[in-house]
């Protein structure tokens, strides 16, 4: 779970870490007031859950309060399309207004889970405000990485290794060491997966300021961090995504026209892959998961067949924990409720498959029953009407 920049900065502030002076605005009227209070120039930062905002026009410098207001009028409500958002982009609903910093030097500071080495890592770079992956390819000599584990935390000597690597003046080293230990302690305590301060700015007045911050928390641990789960912001999600979440369905919108309803993430991906393999285009990823209820299946099926883009749909179930009859009942109930105006292919195997198929047949609804995975995929692609 990512949180918005302004939320992450509030957290840093509470940890005693310096952030730029700034306020959150939800309307152009607020913008002008804030700019007058802060003094000029000011920076407007669109609050969306995506990187690459700068290139997409989501970060703007305003010399005067009036300029800020007019820039903000354009920005509010705009769909920003960044390298990470996909074609639909994300709508700007909030803008963080900050006093511009007098930047003397920019660094990068990141903490992350290192899957490969099964530990935590801290990474600093002598250049900041950059794409760190890019820099690590081009100028690895500017980057230093250390590993630490959650039981031990970051040792003082490790923080010193990182701090001295940045080649800042001696009087900033202690500040940096305590910043690093502070952030790594927070990372472990609150179960983060990623924390980036990029750039960490050294100002002309010799302050270390976190100019931009990215924080990603571990969804699996939100239950034990009520303070963090309260920061969840779903305003970027589509309506279907929100509905799906309410029923604990794992739904993701794609660009195609063939709806998919599958149990298990691996099988769901394979289902999308095989549809592509036969020239179709999946409209979505939808994993109903193992502990699904009949009601949730009903809702999942509704999301599929109510999607105007969808021209045909595939239900692909391999019963294990999930029982085929439960899925069949959910699908039939929904189809009876909303009508079945699009061709739907159903393929079922595994636990209670016979009961499931019986329910589908006895419903009298025109489901296309497929015998195996390949037949099902071929059929739904041919029924989609957009076969290559």
């Amino acid at each position, binding site marked *: 779970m990512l949180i918005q920049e302004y939320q992450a900065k509030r957290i840093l502030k509470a940890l005693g870490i310096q952030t730029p002076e700034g306020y959150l605005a939800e309307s152009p009227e607020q913008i002008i007031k804030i700019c007058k209070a802060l003094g000029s120039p000011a920076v407007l930062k669109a609050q969306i859950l995506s990187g690459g905002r700068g290139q997409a026009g989501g970060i703007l410098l305003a010399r005067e309060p009036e300029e800020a207001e007019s820039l903000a009028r354009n920005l509010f409500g705009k769909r920003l399309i960044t390298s990470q958002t996909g074609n639909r982009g994300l709508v700007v609903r909030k803008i963080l207004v900050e006093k511009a910093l007098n930047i003397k030097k920019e660094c990068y500071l990141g903490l992350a889970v290192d899957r490969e080495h099964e530990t935590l890592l801290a990474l600093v770079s002598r250049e900041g405000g950059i794409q760190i992956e890019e820099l690590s390819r081009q100028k690895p000599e500017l980057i230093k990485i250390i590993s630490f584990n959650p039981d031990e935390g970051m040792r003082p000597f490790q923080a010193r290794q990182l701090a001295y690597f940045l080649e800042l003046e001696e009087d900033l080293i202690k500040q940096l060491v305590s910043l690093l230990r502070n952030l790594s302690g927070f990372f472990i305590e609150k179960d983060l997966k990623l924390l980036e301060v990029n750039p960490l700015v050294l100002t002309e007045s010799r302050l270390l300021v976190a100019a931009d911050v990215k924080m990603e928390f571990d969804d699996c641990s939100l239950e034990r961090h009520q303070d963090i789960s309260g920061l969840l912001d779903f305003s970027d999600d589509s309506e279907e995504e929100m509905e799906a979440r309410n029923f604990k369905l794992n739904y993701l919108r794609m660009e195609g026209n063939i709806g998919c309803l599958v149990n298990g993430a691996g099988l769901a991906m394979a289902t999308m892959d095989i549809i592509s393999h036969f020239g179709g285009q999946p409209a979505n990823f939808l994993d109903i998961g193992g502990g699904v209820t009949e009601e949730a299946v009903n809702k999942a099926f509704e999301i599929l067949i109510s999607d105007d883009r969808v021209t045909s749909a595939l239900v692909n179930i*391999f019963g294990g924990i999930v029982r085929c009859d439960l899925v069949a009942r959910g699908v039939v109930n929904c189809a009876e409720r909303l009508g079945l105006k699009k061709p739907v292919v159903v393929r079922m195997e595994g636990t209670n498959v016979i009961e499931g198929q019986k329910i589908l047949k006895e419903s009298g609804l025109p489901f296309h029953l497929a015998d195996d995975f390949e037949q099902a995929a071929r059929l739904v692609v041919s029924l989609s009407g957009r076969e290559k």
Partner: protein
Amino acid sequence: MSILVKAKTRILVQGITGKEATFHTQRMQEYGTRVVAGVTPGKGGQSHLGLPVFNTVEQARSAEAPEVSVIFVPPRAGADAIMEAADAGIKLIVCITEGIPVIDMLRAKAFLKKTNSKLIGPNTPGIISPGKSKVGIMPGHIHIPGPVGLISRSGTLTYEAVHQLTKLGVGQSTAVGIGGDSICGLKFAELLEMFREDLQTKALILIGEIGGTAEEEAAGYLKQISYPKPILAYVAGVTAPPGKRLGHAGAIIEGSRGTAQDKTNCLKEAGVRIISNPARIGQETKAILIN
């Protein structure tokens, strides 16, 4: 033969009195798995499904000498349950639990390094050696004994692959789910090493998916040695959009690394036969076995 679990392997169930654990323990017993005891703190001394229940793994270990423990506890207790099993000297730990926080798993893995215990999972369907022992939640009836070893990061997709094999009359030696989480226990390379020595296994299927570097590591391992058995692989997620999570915490594409394309390229270079149509896993494997 087979790897990891055999007909006589003594199995412990951690969290046995829970709803899911009860259901799946019954299925395991029906399958013929030798379940010998269960653990649920606070239920020690009771009997459940005809099995003695203990408060701690340590107590269960000294009373019933289980060799393998299968874990069905809630996510927040998962890492502690893994460490408890390892501390009690259980040699193989199969963690079914899904949703264990990543940092908990880092702690558990660091703990495991100091022991001789091996972990499968978490978020795995488990292990099955068809006809001998089923330690997990997979539907037992779709499996038949035979020459194919499977190692997979995915649950239902493995069932699909096994189903295809069985329909074609091709049986399985052992099918292992390594789990869908970003931090997990044994991975492809370690299990390939075990299958290498297994006389029953004549061919192997790897089922990968986007995210992480488990497939790339497997390719690295295979490039170093001359593996004596044919290996096929299918990697799910060719169509997945980058940067988005698709159910498994592991299934996040990190830059260009971790894409399905990257993984299949690596495996191909290591001499693995890539299956591009997931509906043909059975057929392609059968063809390899006949040649």
